């Protein structure tokens, strides 16, 4: 019951050393100090939150202000002229779309397969599962420029695909796999265990259970993972510089080089003088694409995910 029983750290939150003499004025001084520290921290925390918000507002207003005027239906449907100063971004949007399709076409089957194996057919602490998970953690930490180096050495040179949408898409697929797998695995794990027991008691094979019961139940998380992967892929620049290349023409096949939207912004602002207004408009398009994908991911996470699993 005595004061000594309380750990000093909790008894002395202000960090002021305890003195044995605790006169009334001492106590008042100390509580005032605590009150000041409290107010100071409150002010600091609010100031930080307000400045972060202010910077965000500054960036968005600047971009929308300069970009929205240049944005038009023609900008979206015309091909770039004069290295992008004039004209639009039609070919760039097509390249971005093709690149995304290659990326997802490769990443989805691989990611789905791995996630199913990890969640449904592997005991949690099995050595194989641990090894795969460890390797995915490492993959997730690889810097994007290193993906670019690898993609250039492996897809462009060793496999002979050259600077092409195919090389870029395959490189991106390697990048988004960890994200995709984690999301699908979590989705599968959140399917109630009774589903599996029920299916087993009906004599269904595990593959039937998987295809008809578990995958539909985990579908929202799959979609959410997919959208996150798309977001990451659209945002990527460095990994594509030396895999998908710079060419701004309309791509004729997957073996053509194609410039994505992020690379277009980079190229306009760094290599083309007088390209700023086109760059601003491209930034607006990129941000709208990202907001839509992020919004969709959040919406799926909040509404669909819960309703599907609970029913």
């Amino acid at each position: 019951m005595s004061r000594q029983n309380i750990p000093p750290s909790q008894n002395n939150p202000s960090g002021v050393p305890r003195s044995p003499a605790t006169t009334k004025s001492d106590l008042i001084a100390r509580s005032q100090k605590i009150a000041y520290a409290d107010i100071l921290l409150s002010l600091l925390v609010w100031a930080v939150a307000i400045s972060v918000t202010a910077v965000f507002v500054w960036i968005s207003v600047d971009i929308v202000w300069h970009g929205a005027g240049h944005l038009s239906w023609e900008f979206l449907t015309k091909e770039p002229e004069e290295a992008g100063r004039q004209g639009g971004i039609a070919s760039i949007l097509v390249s971005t779309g093709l690149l995304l399709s290659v990326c997802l076409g490769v990443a989805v089957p691989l990611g789905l397969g791995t996630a199913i194996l990890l969640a449904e057919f592997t005991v949690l602490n099995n050595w194989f599962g641990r090894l795969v998970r460890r390797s995915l953690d490492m993959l997730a930490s690889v810097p994007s420029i290193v993906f670019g180096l690898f993609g250039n050495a492996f897809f462009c040179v060793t496999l002979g695909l050259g600077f092409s949408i195919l090389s870029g898409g395959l490189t991106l697929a390697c990048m988004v796999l960890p994200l995709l797998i984690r999301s699908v695995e979590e989705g599968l794990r959140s399917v109630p265990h009774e589903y599996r027991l029920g299916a087993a008691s009906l004599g269904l094979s595990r593959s039937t259970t998987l295809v008809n019961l578990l995958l539909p139940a985990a579908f929202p998380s799959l979609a959410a993972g997919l959208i996150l992967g798309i977001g990451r892929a659209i945002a990527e620049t460095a990994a594509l510089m030396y895999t998908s290349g710079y060419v701004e023409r309309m791509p004729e096949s997957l073996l053509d080089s194609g410039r994505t939207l992020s690379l277009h912004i980079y190229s306009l602002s760094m290599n083309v003088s007088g390209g700023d207004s086109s760059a601003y408009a491209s930034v607006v398009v990129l941000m709208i694409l990202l907001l839509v994908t992020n919004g969709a991911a959040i919406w799926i996470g909040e509404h669909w995910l819960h309703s599907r699993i609970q029913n």
Partner: protein
Amino acid sequence: MTSSAKKTSFPQNVDRLLVWSLRGIAVIVGTIVLFIIGFLILESLPVFRKVGVLPFLRDTSWNPMQGVYSLTPMLISTLLVVAGAVLLAAPIGILSALFCHYYAPKPVANLYRRLLEIMSGIPGVVYGFWGLVVLVPLINRLHPPGTSLLTGILLLALLITPTIALIADASLAGVPQEYLQGAVALSLSRWGTIREIVLPAARSGLFTSIILGTGRAIGETIIVLMVCGNIVQIPSSVFEPIRTLPANIALEMDFALGDHRSALFVSGLLLMGVNLVLVLLAEAIAQEEIYHN
């Protein structure tokens, strides 16, 4: 007996086929990272064979055409810009997380969280572009040339603040409710509660958030490429231009051939190594947490 075994053998075979093909896929996915490391080493070998490892640290400058390969100035520049960004972003990120949990009214906290989520999705190239057209001219007025270490630090901090804040926010959510109730029972001040109870309890999550933020900053290419000036030197003030390792790769892959190309893969290998150390560190902290509880 035999007939029933025959009947059930069909789905079992399908199951077995499924499991084995899934294992095949997982093996492919699991070996991607080995492939990456393997290719980096393979492409680095020619220059290692020719000059060894030490010139990368000891040579006087970076001029691969002349056969001098010092990565030291770029390594130091990389570490400086990352350290600056993390020193700036870590307090801001953690204070932001504290704001969401202990200071803001609930609707404001949710709004702020949404804002952080949106910010964490903004691509590097957008920050880089904004930095180039807005921040660089501002800093140029302060102290030319504007493309500098400082600009890089500010923009990288902007990039990683939401990452740090969101992970820190999740780890603050994990602080047991009893601790907070105890603090209220002891009538601790808000500052006292945070300093003595919340921060120690959420320590490992906060460290993890900083480490993940650091990893993101080290690998970031496009921002530093756009706003740091790309001059190979050890900066003597924050207003001097620098070139980081990732920016160097992006700049020179265009025309690099032979040993030069090989040297760029060496810098890739170095980046990869630094990041792997960070991942192991984050995992070690997580492990310690498990044993702690």
